[in-house]
């Protein structure tokens, strides 16, 4: 890469940081317990809207995994999410009424919070419907992973988004609060992913899975990106560019090996397709606050009319991380 291009990327990074700084005014602190964050704590950042139903399990899942503090942005929930979150001693919440889209789908808000609070910490950025799976996650805590990453001088950890879906129509099995959503949506596509390299930012661009297969079979280039880098040893100079798909500086995007080897990676189980989905899709369609003029939700809405079944006979039923590693969706790398 030439000097000119790296200079341009540097400018771009500064621009995102400046933008995050500008957007800080949109955030109003509701409960700020960040004073309790100790050096070395693992932090989780997320933006959410009307997720009261999912929050109890979400918080519990990551708390058990070893996340020490949650820093959340509530985008004007009307279902009591905000009040619920304020009760928890390891949660700090900010509230905003401003547009999700204008904040580049929450990236600006989180970039700002990360700049403020995550410097020197391992920082995990996930949505409330994303559940991180990493090698040995059944026997080793997240701290074991981050300690190992530290010891190996690795600064960012990839976890691809794996869309999970139930067998039968999406709306058939209602989700109860506190329940593990993977109990319902426990099927996934094992091997229909397209991978391309993004030359500019150096990241991989992964598309595929059930969304691509069912909703985007005739316009695959519009299918949502599945590559994610949610776990980063944060520095206040870093910035997410687009969701958690890629970062600047671009060295952080090099989470894959180019010489034939495998680096360690995880998976984000994406429990989007629960019975709550149709409602959400309808709402998002009217709010128009999602990516690329909500093209994704438009495509869903068309298909959702007939309550689709994403399941097919080649769907794979989720068992554990070892299964995902054998299928080649994630890797232990040289962590043993």
């Amino acid at each position, binding site marked *: 890469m030439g000097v000119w291009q790296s200079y341009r990327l540097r400018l771009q990074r500064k621009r995102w940081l400046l933008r995050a700084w500008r957007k800080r005014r949109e955030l109003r602190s509701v409960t700020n317990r960040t004073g309790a964050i100790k050096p070395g704590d693992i932090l989780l950042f997320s933006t959410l809207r009307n997720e009261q139903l999912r929050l109890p399990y979400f918080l519990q899942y990551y708390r058990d995994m070893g996340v020490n503090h949650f820093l959340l942005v509530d985008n004007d929930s009307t279902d009591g999410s905000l009040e619920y979150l304020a009760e928890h001693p390891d949660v700090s919440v900010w509230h905003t009424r401003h547009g999700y889209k204008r904040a580049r789908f929450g990236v600006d808000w989180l970039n700002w919070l990360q700049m403020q609070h995550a410097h020197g910490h391992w920082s995990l950025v996930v949505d409330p419907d994303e559940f991180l799976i990493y090698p040995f996650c059944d026997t080793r805590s997240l701290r074991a992973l981050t300690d190992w990453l530290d010891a*190996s001088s690795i600064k960012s950890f990839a976890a691809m988004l794996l869309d999970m879906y139930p067998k039968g129509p999406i709306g058939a099995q209602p989700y109860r609060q506190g329940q593990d959503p993977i109990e319902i949506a426990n099927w996934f596509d094992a091997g229909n992913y397209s991978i391309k390299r993004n030359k500019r930012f150096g990241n991989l661009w992964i598309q595929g899975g059930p969304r691509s297969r069912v909703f985007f079979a005739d316009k695959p280039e519009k299918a949502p990106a599945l590559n994610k880098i949610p776990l980063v040893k944060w520095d206040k100079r870093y910035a997410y560019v687009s969701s958690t798909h890629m970062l600047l500086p671009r060295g952080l995007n090099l989470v894959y090996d180019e010489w034939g*080897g495998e680096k360690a990676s995880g998976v984000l189980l994406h429990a989007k397709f629960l019975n709550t989905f149709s409602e959400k899709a309808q709402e998002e369609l009217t709010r128009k606050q999602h990516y690329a003029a909500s093209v994704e939700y438009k495509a869903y809405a068309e298909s959702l009319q007939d309550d689709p079944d994403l399941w097919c006979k080649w769907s794979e039923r989720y068992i554990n991380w070892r299964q995902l590693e054998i299928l080649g969706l*994630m890797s232990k790398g040289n962590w043993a």
Partner: protein
Amino acid sequence: MSVGIVMLVHTALGRAEQVARHWAAGGCPVVIHVDRSVPKKTYTAFVEALSDLKQVRFCKRHRCEWGTWGIVAASQAGAEMMLSEFQEVRHVYLASGSCLPLRPVQELIDYLAARPRTDFIESATTADVPWTVGGLDQERFTLRFPFSWKRQRYLFDTFVKLQRKIGLKRKMPNGLVPHMGSQWWCLTRQTLSAILQDPERPTYDTFFKRVWIPDESYFQSLARLYSGHIESRSLTLSKFDFQGKPHIFYDDHLQLLRRSDCFVARKIWPHANRLYEVFLTDAAGAMKKTEPNPGKIDRIFAKAVERRTRGRAGLYMQSRFPNPGWENGITSSPYSVFEGFSDLFEDFEGWLAKATSARVHGHLFAPDRVEFAGGQSLMNGALSDSAALRDYNPRSFLCNLIWNTRGERQCFQFGPADIQDIAWDFVKDPNAQVSVISGAWAVPLFRSNRNFADIRKDAALLQRIESEHLNVLRSPYVKAKVRIWTMAEFIEAPMEPLQTILDEIGNRSLRRLAEVPKMVDLDGFGQFLQNLKNQGMHPYLMGDFPVARDMPNAPQSPRKPYLVR
């Protein structure tokens, strides 16, 4: 009391304290060296915590930075104190704060007592072992390293380059032969004191102060001068990854460690509570007698290195995306591409599936849809038959299909009417077996019921595409196993080529082919080609079909399947 432990400690002092107590309880005196970069307050608290143990001492502190002299200085200080203050110690065991004794201390004491004159130190000449990572092996000794690798990388690298350029070299003092090995050793009083009290020690120390990573070579080289009996292995189990960093042990390694039959393991994750709980108990509970199986640990960590450096062939995923040429196998397993066969034979796919145990697809790269075996709309891994999805990334599609069906051979048809982009991918793939009957695309045209003008146009197009494709198949970049017959050649003796291809696929039955596929009726094909020629479109890829000959020795009645014995 014959074993003294020298412990080098820099983090996780709580764990170090636990281990020190364990050693002391087992009757071993312990000398602890705490890195000078540990804050004074933490250090005094640590000393305070262990003050109830008479057998535990603290030696002079040095700053221990990886790769520098500090670690040797620390070991020297610790060993000197051990030898002078505990006269009854016969063996000195060098351990770190993240080492964990796996077997009861008494076993170690007995083991060493039975070998009173043996020094356990891994020590190999640099010329003979390719251990080192990063290219510095012999040069560790011949160059000078005044700069820190961690903090002053640029100066470090530049200075190395400069010395190489000038040809600056150092000689080993007193003809010492450089040896290297694990830094965790167990030496006898005799050997150790000989090293520490050598009148030449200042010479050696001065030399090794400028050696790169001296802790892996100082004692290893000097022990060779004095030891009567070196056993070149470390009593400490330590596994290294591809970058030379030690692997870390976690709770889930408990069973492995139990079966390792090593005395001490490093490095243990400080939060591996269960490991510390299990191994730091009294002799009775520590080691449930299990059959030692140290090979298993070796395999697990060797596999990790292999996975990190070579990876799984044919896998493309979020953390493995090889540059072109570095795939170590473009696809994961062998597969076959058939060109022209399904045009020449009736129901070739059905026949092939019966004759082999392979999965036989139609034209996977047909323009309108993916023709999966049995007309399925989805295939293993939920691969879709949508042509748009496939054409969005044909290479991913092919590699995915082969990866998803590991263990089952895939065959598919290909021809000039298909999307051609994929050709370069399978042509460069050693896993591909490509068999071509050139010109066979003319057969469906011949049998079609269409206007001759359209047929002529199609024939010209297909011939041009296939001709280009054949050039690709004959290019010097080809790695696939390619066989090309002209159609005329092939129908002379169809059995032989078919048998060869099937043998290569690995036929389920080893018998000769029992049933040949039924060839389509080619009566009048020669005339058909002549007609094309007469219209100015010369079909040449199928070879020579004389107008009159049609089929050589062709029976007048339509062909039937026949048996070959």
